[in-house]
């Protein structure tokens, strides 16, 4: 196969091939960047929250209107927990102060030393008198769960009391003590300065996301504290149901909780799946938009290639006929058009790679997006080559089918 005739034909009529090459280049630049962003967002949205079998877990918030004292609130929490445990299909119930992925929670500074003026890291705090490890099925990496003797009862309106044990996530441990293999028994301070509260690490969980589930490493900086707190207007319980019974149990748990109170209460239920959906809604929307644009992009580029190739075939009917009459086989004609297209596409791909890198550079500098890995450029280039050959195949086949007799006719 000689490239020379193809090249000289291309050089004689540059506009059409140039247009196709520009289309290929633009497609590749947008496609590679768009798919990379989609992949990054999907990876973020599919991170584990640390909760095992998320679809079986939900939260139930209850708000009482009357203000009761410390003791009455303690009794009420115990009564409500018992009422929830009695619902059939409930595997485990824990009181908690917040939920992962719920987008609303408390964050506090932790430090390694009382002398520190600024905290080492900001972490989110889950308080519970029950076992969140059990209810959420958190994976204990080392150490143990809290013991009943470690759970103080604290009235947040009057008391400065605090628990002395803490369970941290492995990621938080690695941030605080990067050089240690084990974080058990280490001391960490809640807050800074002389009044910072001393906590001893008794356990490390493999993972537990914060309510915000940020896109940075901070998403896994969580601590669990054992305490029964009063003085809040809201109580939040989190429940794990038998597999597949979430919907029924959610309704029955709400009824049970309402019935357990003498006065009217306000309740709010939300499953962890809903929280996850709400948290990543915007990311999913962007991913959908980018995928749609990418698909349209390929369709339009393919239609452009088909259109131009058809035009060239029509324009060259006579020449094709002459070549066939002079002994060229159908496969030669087919190969001519496919090779011509490959040359054009390749030029487009080369320009496209440069354009993709430039576009990525712009996105990195202006919109704080991650850098594009080379794999996406390769995959995009491969895709466009394949698309080019597939798109040109139809017109090329029609060209190959032109009968040699055409050459003898005048038009």
């Amino acid at each position, binding site marked *: 196969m000689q490239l020379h005739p193809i090249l000289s034909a291309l050089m004689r009529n540059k506009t059409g091939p140039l*247009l196709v090459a520009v289309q290929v280049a633009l497609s590749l630049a947008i496609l590679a960047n768009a798919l990379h962003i989609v992949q990054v967002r999907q990876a973020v949205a599919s991170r584990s929250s640390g909760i095992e079998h998320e679809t079986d877990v939900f939260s139930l918030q209850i708000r009482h209107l009357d203000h009761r004292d410390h003791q009455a609130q303690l009794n009420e929490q115990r009564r409500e927990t018992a009422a929830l445990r009695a619902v059939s299909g409930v595997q485990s119930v824990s009181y908690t102060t917040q939920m992962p992925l719920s987008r609303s929670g408390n964050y506090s*500074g932790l430090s390694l030393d009382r002398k520190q003026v600024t905290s080492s890291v900001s972490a989110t705090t889950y308080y519970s008198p029950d076992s969140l490890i059990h209810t959420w099925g958190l994976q204990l990496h080392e150490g143990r769960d809290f013991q009943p003797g470690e759970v103080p009862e604290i009235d947040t309106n009057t008391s400065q009391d605090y628990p002395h044990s803490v369970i941290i996530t492995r990621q938080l441990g690695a941030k605080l003590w990067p050089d240690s293999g084990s974080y058990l028994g280490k001391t960490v301070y809640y807050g800074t300065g002389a009044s910072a509260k001393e906590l001893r690490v008794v356990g490390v969980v493999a993972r537990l996301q914060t309510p915000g589930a940020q896109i940075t490493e901070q998403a896994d900086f969580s601590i669990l504290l054992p305490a029964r707190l009063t003085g809040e207007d809201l109580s939040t319980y989190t429940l794990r149901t038998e597999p597949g019974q979430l919907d029924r149990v959610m309704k029955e748990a709400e009824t049970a909780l309402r019935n357990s109170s003498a006065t009217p209460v306000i309740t709010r239920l939300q499953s962890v799946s809903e929280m996850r959906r709400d948290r990543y809604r*915007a990311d999913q929307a962007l991913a959908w938009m980018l995928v749609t644009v990418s698909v349209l*992009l390929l369709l339009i580029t393919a239609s452009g290639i088909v259109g131009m190739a058809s035009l060239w075939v029509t324009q060259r009917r006579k020449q094709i006929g002459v070549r066939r009459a002079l002994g060229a086989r159908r496969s030669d004609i087919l190969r001519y058009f496919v090779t011509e297209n490959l040359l054009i596409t390749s030029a487009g791909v080369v320009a496209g790679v440069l354009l993709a890198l430039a576009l990525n550079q712009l996105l990195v500098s*202006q919109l704080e997006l991650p850098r594009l890995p080379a794999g996406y450029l390769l995959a995009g280039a491969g895709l466009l080559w394949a698309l080019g050959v597939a798109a040109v195949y139809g017109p090329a086949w029609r060209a190959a089918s032109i009968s040699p007799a055409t050459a003898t006719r005048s038009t």
Partner: protein
Amino acid sequence: MFQYYFMLGLRSLRRNPALTALMVLTLAVGVAASIATLTILHVMSGDPIPHKSDRLLVPVIDNGPLAGYTAGDEPNDRQLSYRDATNLLANKVAGRSTALYGISVAVEPARKDLPLFNARGLAATSDFFNMFEVPFRYGQGWSPAEDKSAADVVVLSRKLAEKLYGDSDPVGQRLRINGQQYQITGVLDTWNVVPRFHRIIGTPDGAFGDEDELYLPFATSVRHETQRNGNSSCSGDIAPGYQAYLDSECTWIQFWFELRSARERGALQDYLNSYATEQRKLGRMQRQAPNKLYDVREWLDYMKVVGNDNKLSAWLAFGFLVLCLVNTIGLLLAKFSVRAAEVGIRRALGASRREIFQQFLIETTVIGLAGGLLGLLLAFGALALIAMQSKALTVVAHMDWQMLLLTFALSVLAAVVAGLLPTWRACQTTPALQLKSQ
């Protein structure tokens, strides 16, 4: 002549239906994608209160601890402490000022068929309603005297009022909130300000969240220790209890000034600086960070209300439009090149290049109009789809007249730009050569 060429253009649409359909579709898809993303960007970055956006100002004072601070650091929070908010409310420089924070309350309807429910509200001072030009359906806001006496009064949103009282005027009635009786002084009309610039901090959907359901006087809300609903930033330890929280340096209040004229901004800045200096003498604000003022536009910019994702979508959509244009150029070239014979005959019969150019340009305009129409439909569809994806975007994903006109203009312009090269090429046909080869 124009009419005739227009007719020819319409007729030529039918002559090569597959190619024409492809062109119109390409153009429509490109225009729709860019219009849909542009609409969102346009609404998001719009000025919500154009006639006074330069007179409404947010102060940012850094009251964080000196320890660990290096000059030039961003403040820990863009809200104010209770102490600063109440002090600034007493200023004499601004015509109006208000302090805001989100609250969550339990409403007990008088109607027995409605259960207790939670409502999301805002604690504000009496100036709030005038400052942000909140529309009233019934009654009005509370008075400055009621601010001072921390009276138990409430203003309801239209939605909440309709839920509780139907369409009737509830002004003057009493409503039980958090176990207290509150007198209703007014009901708002639907207040769809986009972006919800007065309240960007502390709502899950930021500037594009839901409307607040009720409004309480700031002092009343503090007096009843109403449950806060929003962000709070504290550094260091604070003593237990509500009073200690009020006395602390925790920041949780959003503050707004309204100037009588934008020229007074300098005076307000001076006031803010002298306030901070005065507080420094009391041992506060040791960071000595610059005190900042942001007007509405600067505030929206500073708070990054238009997310990077929206900009990204718009950029990519425009890249896509460029691709569609290149594609259309190619297709038009193909379409026109097969009509070289027609051009040859017309030229031989005396038509000038100019006339040929006109005819073909009108033909591409016809394609542009068709693409614009279809693009508009597609853009509506795309916006509906986008609105379904994200609750925050439902508020912004609606098209206005400006965007509608822009769609057509963009589409026709795109078609004409795309048609220039092919049209010019068509005009180059030499009549003699063309006729000879027939």
